[in-house]
């Protein structure tokens, strides 16, 4: 029930403002966007889809930031390892 998938808005439908055409891995369907009425959703935005409704916008900046954080964790270790490799204490 908590399964929600990311999809990208391909087309807004002006005659039916409560819907948008969304693409999920090449499959295109209409999705109800009423829950995002307070935010400005537009073509190209990524949204989280759950039982035919867009639940939330996916913030690309935050996604990038999360991944950067994880990469930094990995980098810290790689740096440490490199420093160890380069060291010669005796």
């Amino acid at each position, binding site marked *: 029930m908590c399964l929600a998938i990311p999809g990208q808005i391909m087309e807004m439908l002006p005659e039916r403002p409560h819907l948008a055409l969304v693409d999920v891995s090449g499959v295109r369907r209409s999705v109800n966007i009423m829950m995002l009425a307070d935010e400005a959703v537009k073509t190209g935005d990524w949204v989280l889809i759950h039982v*035919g409704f867009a639940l939330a916008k996916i913030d690309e900046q935050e996604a990038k930031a999360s991944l950067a954080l994880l990469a930094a964790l990995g980098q810290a270790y790689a740096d440490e390892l490199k420093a160890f490799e380069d060291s010669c204490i005796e």
Partner: protein
Amino acid sequence: MRFVDEFRDPEMARVLAREIARLADPRRHYKFMEVCGGHTHTIYKHGIEDYLPPNLTLVHGPGCPVCVIPMGRVDDAVHIAAQPEVILTSFGDMMRVPGGRGSFLDATARGADIRMVYSPLDALKVARQNPDKQVVFMAIGFETTAPSTALTVLQAAQEGVKNFSIFCNHVIILPAIKAILDSPDLRLDGFIGPGHVSTVIGCRPYEFMTRDFHKPMVIAGFEPLDILQAIYMLLRQLAAGRCEVENQYTRVVPWDGNRKALQVIHEVMELRPYFEWRGLGFISHSALKVRDTFTDFDAERRFAVPGVRVTDPKACQCGEVLKGVLKPWECKVFGTACTPETPIGTCMVSSEGACAAYYNYGRFTRTRMREVVETA
């Protein structure tokens, strides 16, 4: 797939596993509860537990909205479906949940018209296409799904659809978490919070956990890296002596939640004084019902439901599994009398149930085999 694949990177997972192992104090045993069934599913499917040190255990919580529906409510729904003019519509994972008198699937074999739908909007469409029938939607799910049901009711009202109603079994996550925290059987060190429920309710509601119960809470996404990062964040808190609500799933969860979604829930539904949860008993103000202003869309008032309380079969230990007291394989009937094909309880049936997740994904790892042998 974007926003999915990047959060499944195995190299990153190894990095996180290493950091987790470094942070976990070898003199301590950590028990973190992941509340949401979706998390249980990911954990088993991706073998997350294999990335964790032996002194860190994940305990599965009651966040599976199908699993917590008591048998009596399934019987009520079957009773509605048995009326000749009714078409009952339901999400797929309810179809095989056993009631006192069988599941929805058993009822279809006896002639009831019960149809699987992906969305409550599909149910509304069935109502429009069958004006001579009464279409009832079996509404289940936590706050993730309740707004979708509410918006569908509002749309039905706006369109003047007269043959559509919902059998409302939406439940609220916070009372369940509080029941776990109040429970003497469990001693947990932290919680991994439900990511998608939180897109609706935000992060603020969980503050009582840190304030009153001193347990850290990290709201997590559903990909393997999300869960591993949440565990890392919990360990960081414990190591630093912090106790806070943190948001790991920042790409999707807003701190204040989705105001519009909360507003539509509030418009269409209100809290029941109490509701029975499988395994947790009666919890006050833990579930939703349709408001008086939308009586026409309330199946419970349109049809007389028996409302009988059915006790779970003696062999069924779903309650303890849902509270995290028992692991799936510790249940006496796991894998023997209770399998996905012949389920006794809901944990084995739902796509988010701990038993189903373990049965489908978790059984054959070497660490698991060792654990099973040791607890036997």
